[in-house]
């Protein structure tokens, strides 16, 4: 069920240049059903900024009733969010959308998780859940440069992790696709989240493979009512548009025309 929860900040820290990790607690955590779902965050009690900010759920700890979000403090809203301190209240709407299907990969099989920039966070909870059920996860993470890269260690704990940076300051120079080319792993499924061009490249590189992609779109309501966040689908039927917020953000590869 979707809740509007006044969550409490348990901790917030900067984990890379302009990248923040915030731990939140509240009953909303108990409603999360799959990795890749997101929350719609109101950063201030003011009318400016007005709209909520969609942020993926990066990891969940049901025991502590906590969840983690990881975001880039860039524009007006996220910059304000980064100022929150332990004990502050945050108005969070969620969990929203349909996440990554964990059961599409069977125990013993291998899954490749490809993330780019702020598309990396949701893959962490996904990898936790996949490895927990015995899936072998291989992570390919792309960043602009070393100083904005994060969670390399955390992912390594879960499986092989390859980093690509555009400026070559960490791992392979270039894009995630450069890493993918040299991966001779056999895999059953791939999961990906990141900027459109990256999703496009990944989908093309893995044509014919079973894959799931998480998309971004500017949002209004976040729950499917305003038609702001639509994507065009490949099959031009009556459902030529699907909503990222409520039909997605995760769709099987090939469904969304990129």
């Amino acid at each position, binding site marked *: 069920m979707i809740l509007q929860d006044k969550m409490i900040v348990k901790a917030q820290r900067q984990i890379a240049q302009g990248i923040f990790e915030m731990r939140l607690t509240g009953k909303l955590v108990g409603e999360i059903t799959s990795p890749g779902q997101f929350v719609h965050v*109101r950063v201030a009690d003011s009318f*400016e*900024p007005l709209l909520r900010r969609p942020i993926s759920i990066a990891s969940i700890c049901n025991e502590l009733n906590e969840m983690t979000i990881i975001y880039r403090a860039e524009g007006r809203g996220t910059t304000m969010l980064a100022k929150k301190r332990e004990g502050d209240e945050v108005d969070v709407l969620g969990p929203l959308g349909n996440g990554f299907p964990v059961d599409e990969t069977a125990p013993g099989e291998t899954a490749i998780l490809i993330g780019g920039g702020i598309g990396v966070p949701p893959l962490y909870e996904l990898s936790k859940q996949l490895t927990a059920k015995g899936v072998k996860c291989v992570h390919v993470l792309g960043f602009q440069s070393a100083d904005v890269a994060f969670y390399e260690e955390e992912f390594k704990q879960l499986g092989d992790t390859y980093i690509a940076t555009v400026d070559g300051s960490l791992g392979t120079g270039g894009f995630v696709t450069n890493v993918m080319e040299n991966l001779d792993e056999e895999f059953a499924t791939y999961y990906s989240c990141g900027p459109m061009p990256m999703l496009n490249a990944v989908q093309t590189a893995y044509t014919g493979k079973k894959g799931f992609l998480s998309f971004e779109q500017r949002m209004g309501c976040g*729950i499917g*009512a305003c038609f*702001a966040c639509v994507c065009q689908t490949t099959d031009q039927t*009556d459902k030529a548009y699907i909503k990222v917020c409520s039909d997605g953000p995760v769709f099987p590869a090939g469904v969304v025309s990129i």
Partner: protein
Amino acid sequence: MNRLSIELPGLQLKNPIMPASGCFGFGKEYGNLYDLSQLGAIMIKATTLETRFGNPTPRVAETAAGMLNAIGLQNPGLQGVMEAELPWLEQFDVPIIANVAGTETADYVEVAKTISTAPNVKALELNISCPNVKCGGITFGTDPQQAHDLTAAVKAVSEVPVYVKLSPNVTDIKAIAKAVEEGGADGITMINTLVGMRLDQKTGRPIIANVTGGLSGPAVKPVAIRMVYEVSQVVNIPIIGMGGVSNAEDVIDFLSVGASAVAVGTANFVDPFVCPTIIEELPAKMDALGIEHITDLIGRSHRL
């Protein structure tokens, strides 16, 4: 006795609060969050004759205390609304106001004729003010004669009272209001969005794919309040006011300048529970002002 009840042409409202068209879809999503029967009414998303996919994305952009949208009237079309959306809404004890849009008079007339026969549609809201479609829409809303004629044409075929939604993007909104009243409108809803634009800082290009979008939210409230204040003095038909309503205080402001009911749009995105919250808070606010019945607030700015 219900302190919040209001009677308007075709509408028996439990309270003066209703979600504004386009900010509430056809109710399903918010229906998952709370019981829609609490609402005074529901203004559903614009319905056009044919299915519309709307504009390319991005369709929304944030502005200071407001937002721009250019959805482009995406909707399943008359048939889809009649067969799927409206029947689903019948489970709730709430009157539906159907927002009708089109390109030519004929479209409006055909949609109005059919949709006004739906059992739960108690009134129509003629959208002659959508700034986000190439033709039709707003062109009707900026010329008094066209507004008058379209109103008359729709009025002739509608089975339920017709409210006309005015555009704020005009020099003299009073003239348009009087024209639609003469055209036979049973009521007026106002305001629709102000045409605005936001650029991407890096590229200098408009963020909204449609280039311009409609401005809504708290930023436009002062303009909406002023326009309702003006129009309520020159027409004798009721006004459903909207534009930046976010809380019970805002509702009281719109009633004070002469609105008989209030619609809530953008605020639903900021707080999905805003409508029931306002309905819950109104009585206490009325007590603080020594107001017995909500209707006592209507037009007090003029009276005092």
